[in-house]
């Protein structure tokens, strides 16, 4: 590593001034999103209601994060922090769900349990 690498992320930060038109545009997108998500709730889409609602929510969040929170104009580190946080949230939800939703699963013998491999290991070791 060479010396000039120090302050590696300390890139010259040009303060980006977002035009008002962009802000207003994002604002309008958010309003439309809210109207859409409320409206869709009155249409029966079965389980897709939830999916659509979440897609709209994520889209709205992306607009807020990218423009209102200036992430579009920020260095990569900020994005790593955000993605990291959601990744960790994903870990928590997925692994907890993995337990809660598989508790009542029927037992299905796995191939390596069906006394094919095990005797060999035990025989080999003892």
């Amino acid at each position, binding site marked *: 590593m060479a010396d000039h690498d120090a302050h590696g992320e300390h890139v*010259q930060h040009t303060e980006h*001034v977002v035009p008002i038109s962009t*802000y207003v545009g994002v*604002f309008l997108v958010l*309003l439309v999103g809210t109207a859409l*998500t409320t409206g869709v*709730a*009155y249409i029966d889409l079965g389980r897709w209601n939830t999916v659509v609602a979440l897609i709209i929510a994520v889209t*709205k969040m992306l607009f807020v994060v990218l423009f209102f929170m200036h992430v579009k104009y920020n260095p990569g580190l900020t994005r790593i*922090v955000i993605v990291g946080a959601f990744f960790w949230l994903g870990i928590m939800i997925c692994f907890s769900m993995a337990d809660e939703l598989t508790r009542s699963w029927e037992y299905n013998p796995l191939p390596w349990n069906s006394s094919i491999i095990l005797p060999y290991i035990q025989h080999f070791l003892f």
Partner: protein
Amino acid sequence: MSETALHHANPTGFAHQFEDLEQQHEAGRLGMWIFLATEILFFGGMFTAYTIYRALHLPAFVIGSHLLEVQFGATNTVVLICSSLTMALAIRAAQTGKEKSTIIMWLVLTMILGATFLGLKLRFEWYHDYVEHIVPGFGFVYRPEWGSLAPSVQMFMCFYFFMTGLHALHMVVGLGILAVLVGMAGKGKFTSQYYVPLEISGLYWHFVDIVWIFLFPLLYLIGGRYASGGH
């Protein structure tokens, strides 16, 4: 929460431990983003519990969701989105070196919108819920039409109050930060060179907005409204 902001409310605007103002800004911004990451996990604990119970008790959660009034949830969403816009404009005003009165105007507008959100929530939602005996722990009454799902309906209401309550608490803290910012702006602290406190407080405010963007469909719109057709 407000600590990062307050820390930077240093009168000189520049803290001795940094090499230059640029480094200080970067540090402040990164600090706030990391704080928001912890906030994501903080709310995340509740979202995890919510997701699991929703999967296990969906019918009861639908009943519970239909106890909430969509129009207030939607109105509050719009109010918060407006406040995010005014917050962004306050920062922009500082960035572009506008008069301090302009900055203060946008900040005060943001505060008014935030207060409106809390007012609506308290007066038209929580108070009503209290009157209708659907606040868990405060005279919650099982309704006969819920049948044996009543305990799970109560659980949904627990989630509703924990999550919106925690969100409202963050709003209150946000209002406090905004008040400090208004004071700082009044003293002419913010220039086009130095507005980091504004910027990172803005990040916090937008974050609180995002939490609501998720809470609204997850709490108010479970299972759709087509069955009961709203209220």
